[in-house]
């Protein structure tokens, strides 16, 4: 029996919704299921905003959450009622079953449950009060209830609980009692045949599977690639990258500094890159805007640096705790002058790990800033990732010049070569002295604004990047689904690729010939691959989370073919159902045909 179960917990800030979701996903990962999980919470630290914890546990790593959940838990009916539809037919809705005082009509969740949904109403408050003396452990009671109801072993839940509250022994003890009380109650009830956990998948040999967030995966990639220095300034949703590195890097004897602003962060990153160090910063859209000028210096002075960018919503301060993919244009084009750079966008948490490390290789190999573009949805979501036994990253991809016996000031740091990449030297290397300058320069790095020189240097800076599309052991793009001609081809990037792939799989199950192209490297753009993919497709769909269709715009600047833009700015991940509907429309399936 295969497992594919999605559980959503909806509550108000203060109900412990997110904490319960965290314990649940840790337990699921410990069972050995593949997990993908993403929480939604309000921007305020305190308050009564809506919190949702969602997770999907499967045998094979899923690409996205499902359009509908198998189990919906309400810790707060006023917030959960609008989400009742999220539970599928024959799915479970679990809510407070204890007696409540007089309520206005329609404010109790039981009035909204569909006849096809299975209601469970354990007395959560009462069980919490009995087992711990307070109603605050309702969130833990309900976890125990879920474990009991689905006949799951309770130990992984207990271990997850104890590790979460390891610094507060008394809290852990009370919560253990709450968990057991919930478990006993759940085990008393009939088990849902329609929502059942199968045995977890067998373990892979060699790789260790861990459940981590996108930001944590970036950090792990950076550490595995041997990051030497990090300079950053806090900003949501990138801050946890810096926070994790701040605790990890000193253990490796490496250095992190919180700078006075994002301009200093990228400036110091480039300063460190000049010395040959593997160095990075992390920010979000507002910080990337401040870094634009300095990135141009990195481009013209050909200094390696890595910038991790986690996008959030809107211009200016916008929506700091909502997800969006609207900084793509800035990442690719931001800044003055012709300033080409490498932009890679991972599509899942495993990709965050690989891009997090590969970015350092690329920065060195092509002597340029590399932007790794995430978004809040990818930064904050959890997935189970198989980590290889040996980090898949090269320790040093610099091309150093042999400067022994070099004449003073005679080193051609910017030598024009056939492959457009010049061997470099770093401070401390005798005979390699040169000036890295933001002025246009000649091969020696001396200021030079002659027409021929500017043309030659501009060509060098652009052409050298093309090799990055074939960077060793890196997936710059990949095709999924049907081979050969298809009715609908989906080209997607970043976090939205997961939903696109899920929709493509569902469309193929409906008999639509369909393929999806994942584009990880957006600058330089894989023009030939995308053009060939589109030539195969009757229609091309580009789903993304921004208003303009920024990726579609970049695509069409390279491939002159029509595309259908599915551009959404809801602040939430794209809905699989919406992409699927668009695929059906493009494939010529009307809703009536669909029903038939």
């Amino acid at each position: 029996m295969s497992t594919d179960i999605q559980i959503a917990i909806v509550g108000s800030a203060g109900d412990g919704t997110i904490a319960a979701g965290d314990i649940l996903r840790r337990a699921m990962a410990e069972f050995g299921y593949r997990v993908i999980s993403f929480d939604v919470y309000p921007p305020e630290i305190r308050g009564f905003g809506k919190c949702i914890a969602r997770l999907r546990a499967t045998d094979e790593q899923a690409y996205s959450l499902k359009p509908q959940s198998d189990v919906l838990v309400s810790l707060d009916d006023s917030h959960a009622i609008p989400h009742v539809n999220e539970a599928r037919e024959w799915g479970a809705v679990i809510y407070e079953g204890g007696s409540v005082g007089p309520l206005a009509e329609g404010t109790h969740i039981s009035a909204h449950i569909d006849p096809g949904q299975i209601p469970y109403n354990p007395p959560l408050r009462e069980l919490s009060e009995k087992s711990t003396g307070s109603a605050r452990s309702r969130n833990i009671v309900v976890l125990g209830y879920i474990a009991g109801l689905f006949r799951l072993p309770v130990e992984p839940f207990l271990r997850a609980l104890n590790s979460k509250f390891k610094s507060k022994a008394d809290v852990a003890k009370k919560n253990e009692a709450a968990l057991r009380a919930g478990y006993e109650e759940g085990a008393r009830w009939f088990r849902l045949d329609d929502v059942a956990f199968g045995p977890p998948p067998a373990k892979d040999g060699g790789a260790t599977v861990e459940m981590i967030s996108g930001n944590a995966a970036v950090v792990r990639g950076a550490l595995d690639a041997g990051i030497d220095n990090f300079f950053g300034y806090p900003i949501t949703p990138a801050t946890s990258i810096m926070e994790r590195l701040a605790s990890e890097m000193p253990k490796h004897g490496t250095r992190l500094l919180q700078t006075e602003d994002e301009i200093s962060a990228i400036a110091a990153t480039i300063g460190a890159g000049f010395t040959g160090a593997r160095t990075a910063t992390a920010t979000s859209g507002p910080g990337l805007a401040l870094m634009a000028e300095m990135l141009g210096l990195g481009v013209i002075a050909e200094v390696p640096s890595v910038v991790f960018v986690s996008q959030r919503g809107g211009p200016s301060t916008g929506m700091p705790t909502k997800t969006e993919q609207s900084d793509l244009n800035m990442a690719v084009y931001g800044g003055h002058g012709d300033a080409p750079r490498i932009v890679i966008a991972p599509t899942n948490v495993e990709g965050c790990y690989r891009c997090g490390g590969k970015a350092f290789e690329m920065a060195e190999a092509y002597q340029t800033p590399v932007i790794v573009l995430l978004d809040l949805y990818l930064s904050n979501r959890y997935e189970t990732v198989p980590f290889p036994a040996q980090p898949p990253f090269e320790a040093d991809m610099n091309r150093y010049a042999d400067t022994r016996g070099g004449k003073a000031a005679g080193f051609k740091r910017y030598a024009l070569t056939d492959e457009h990449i010049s061997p470099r030297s770093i401070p401390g290397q005798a005979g390699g002295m040169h000036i890295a300058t933001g002025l246009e320069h000649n091969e020696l790095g001396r200021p030079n604004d002659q027409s021929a020189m500017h043309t030659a240097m501009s060509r060098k800076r652009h052409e050298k990047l093309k090799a990055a599309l074939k960077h060793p052991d890196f997936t710059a793009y990949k095709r999924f689904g049907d081979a050969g001609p298809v009715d609908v081809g989906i080209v997607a990037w970043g976090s939205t690729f997961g939903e696109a792939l899920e929709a493509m799989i569902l469309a193929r199950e409906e008999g639509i010939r369909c393929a999806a192209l994942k584009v990880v490297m957006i600058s330089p753009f894989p023009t030939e691959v995308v053009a060939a993919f589109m030539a195969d497709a009757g229609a091309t769909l580009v789903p993304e989370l921004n208003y303009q269709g920024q990726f579609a715009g970049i695509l069409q600047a390279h491939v002159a073919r029509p595309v259908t833009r599915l551009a959404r700015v809801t602040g939430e991940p794209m809905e699989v159902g919406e992409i699927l509907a668009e695929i059906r429309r493009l494939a010529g399936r009307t809703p009536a045909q669909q029903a038939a």
Partner: protein
Amino acid sequence: MGDIRPVYLEEKLKEVEDSGRLGYRSKALPTWCPGCGYFAIVDAVAAALCEQCVPYEDAVIVSGIGCSSRFPFFMNAYGMHTLHGRALPVATGVKTANPALTVVAVGGDGDGFAIGGGHVPHAARRNLNITYLLFDNGIYGLTKGQTSPTSATGFRTTTSPYDNTDRPINPLMLLLSYGATWVGQSYAGKPEHLRRMVAAALAHRGFSYLHIISPCVTFDKTHRTYVNLGTKIRELPADHDPSDKLGALREAMNDSTPAIGLYFREDRPTLDDALDTIVEKAGGTAARERVIQKQAGRKTRG
């Protein structure tokens, strides 16, 4: 005026060649206007590096944008000629990544106190172990004469044709209060004093700030001329105690007759020390040793 004596070109050339400091000068000749005070600074820095036997390849000169920021091109060392106002954060990256390097940040009054003013407090409070040479000519020279944050009130420039109404800032007082651990002032018209001060600033372990007053011979014919500066500038009183911060602040307040010399110095752990302490607390291997070894490994071809 009693200390003025004739200097003969041949004698001077021989002295300079014998000193070895010409090795620290690049083949590129300075692009400054004839008579500019900055020529003296190039010579002073070359002499100071030479005096302290810093290998050419271990020195990194970092600058922003402006007349003064062309400086790295005139030195035989590694250099970064960066963005307007950003010399200090770039230098922070260089020094943090490789603490074995001798890092000198250079820049002008506009670079350091207008566009880059936000970085100075942080380099100072962290006690970043570099030397910051601030070339103050009270004007934006490279863009042909606009008002700067140290321009005198009433100064007429192309951007203040009816007089500059802003009052100039007092960089020395700022640096003293920011927590710089070495604060000094010199004058481009006194090359010997300048050379001694640059050498002392380089020798200091921690953030050393040397404010160098200079005329702009091209765009300022009224305020900072050699004649005006030469008559106004005084030496710090002989009994000034550089460990007395209040005394230093008192002297710095008197900016109508600026005093040259060492205002303040103290010993405090540097940013490198602090980062090493963090590594110790985390149980890691000594950062500095590790970083230096790694860098050494990377330059084996050199």
